[in-house]
Every structure is written in structure tokens, then in C-alpha cells.
């Protein structure tokens, strides 16, 4: 699976929430697009990831 342009390993039947927590992402402070579509936070537990998926995981940084 690709996350932010890089290949990462994925456990079988891992939900988006499980993946984010396992990789120490702070879920409350980020947003995720999966294959170009934004995933609503409410769906993080039910979206099951697969190897073909491409995720963009973003958070706020300083900016003007």
C-alpha cells in the first residue's frame, strides 16, 4: 500500500484506524484521502485497507 507516496507494509484486514494507530499517527489532528477520496473520520474503523490502496495522510503545519 502506498502512503504519502511511499510503499508501506499492511497487515491483512487492517482498518484505516488500526493502521493509523499502529503507525503512531495522531488521528484527531489529521485527515486522510484514500484513492483520491476523502475518508470521513466516522468511517475510519470500517474502511478496510488493501494493498492496492494509495493514502494521503495530512496534518496542519505552519503556514502563512
Amino acid at each position, binding site marked *: 500500500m502506498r502512503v*504519502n507516496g511511499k510503499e508501506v507494509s499492511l497487515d491483512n484486514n487492517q482498518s484505516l484506524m488500526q493502521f493509523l494507530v499502529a503507525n503512531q499517527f495522531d488521528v484527531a489532528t*489529521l*485527515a486522510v484521502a484514500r484513492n483520491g477520496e*476523502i475518508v470521513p473520520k466516522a468511517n475510519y474503523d470500517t474502511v478496510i485497507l488493501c494493498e492496492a490502496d494509495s493514502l494521503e495522510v495530512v496534518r496542519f*503545519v*505552519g*503556514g*502563512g
Partner: protein
Amino acid sequence: MADQLIIGGHRFTSRFILGSGKFSLEIVEAVVENGGAEMVTLALRRANLGGEENILDYIPKQITLLPNTSGARTAEEAVKIARLAREINCGNFIKVEVIRDSKYLFPDNYETIKATEILAGEGFIVMPYMYPDLNVARDLVSAGAAAVMPLASPIGSNKGLSTRDFIEILVNEITVPIIVDAGIGRPSQACEAMEMGVDAIMCNTAVATAKNVPLMARAFGQAIESGRNAYLAGLGRVLTEAGEASSPLTGFLED
């Protein structure tokens, strides 16, 4: 009633909007508090795998967050970034910033209008960053912009009010709040813009590149308040052909 800045129905006492780029995280809170800013701009970027510090932990909780769409080169990209930013659940404000000129970083006014219309239709409080053009400002207002943010000079340049005359035209003709954004380099320039009747100032590099960053934030906060008071007080008239004594030219001690 106190003089307040009203954007999209939200009220602010401070007319200083602070950009948070180029600061170390530890200094962000001091800068916000010294400047008295009530709104802080943020950008959206990829998160790194495996626990990292988050800027949201350094911004006081009562501050209104203004995500920007920096990185967007088209309206479509700006809309996508805005929708992602809103998913982080920090409110409906969005600064639309669409830039495809990588040298001067000028905004693409026409893509900005397109993005503004889409996002305003989705309930965002849209604050578009624009090159000061009256026709474009009118189109942005028609598209649903809650304010317009004309640039003073190129982003990050500290050059000052290069577009002064064109901002003044917007002040005279546009009814939504006008927030000068980009290129302000000195508190005196922020003060001058406020004296003209601009509604607020957005500033980032001028504070971040100062020798004493929190103190410069305070200087900007004071300058913006000073300029606003001067505008409300009504500037005195200018004599171009002569001077005028402050005291009568009679009644001297000796004839």
C-alpha cells in the same frame, strides 16, 4: 459597542491575522500572545509516519484557525485541500491561495474565483488571497467570499505596500472586509494600511524574520491597533501649499 472585525458572522477584536510559517513550534504561542492575534493561518501537508509534534498543540485553544490552500495550482487542487482541511474539524474558515507562478508567488485570480464559488457553496467561510484587481474583487464577492485578501507585495519579501493605490481603490469600492496579506515588512506599513481603511492585516515573514520574534509580534499588534484608531479618529487635512502656525502669530513678548 467595541469596534470589531466581522468575517462570515464571526467577531474579532484583533485585526491582526498571524501566519504561522517559519517559526519553531516552541515560539508559536509566544508570538500569538504578544501579537494579540485571534486568528492564525496554517498550511496542510503530508504527515510523517511515526509520532511527530503537532502545531495545534502550540496554538492557544481559543484561537480561530484559518487553514490555507497553499500548494494548490488550480481551483480543483484548492478545493481538495480545503475539504481535507475541514476534515480535521477545526472550523469552516479557509484561505484560498492558488499560485502557479513560482518566482513571485502571485495568486491566480481566476482560479481563485472558481475555488471561492465552489467552497462558498459548500458552507466554507472563504477568504481568498488575491492580486488587487477591482473587477476580480467584485467577482470574488459575487462568488461568496467573506472577505478579500489583496497582496501588498510578493509573499515573504518584506517589501511593503507596493500595491498601495490599488488597495485604496478596493477600500473605496468593496463592501466585504479587506485584509492586506503578503509582503508587509514593517509595523509602520501595517499601520499605514490600517490608516487607509483596510480592515485587517495578515503578516508572517515580517515577524518570523525579525531579530526578536515575540517583540516584533507585539510591535505589529500595536501598529495595527494604532492605524485602526487613526482611521476611526479621522486623519487631519494636509496642506500642500503652505504651513499653518499652531499658535497665533501675535502677542509676542517684545514688539
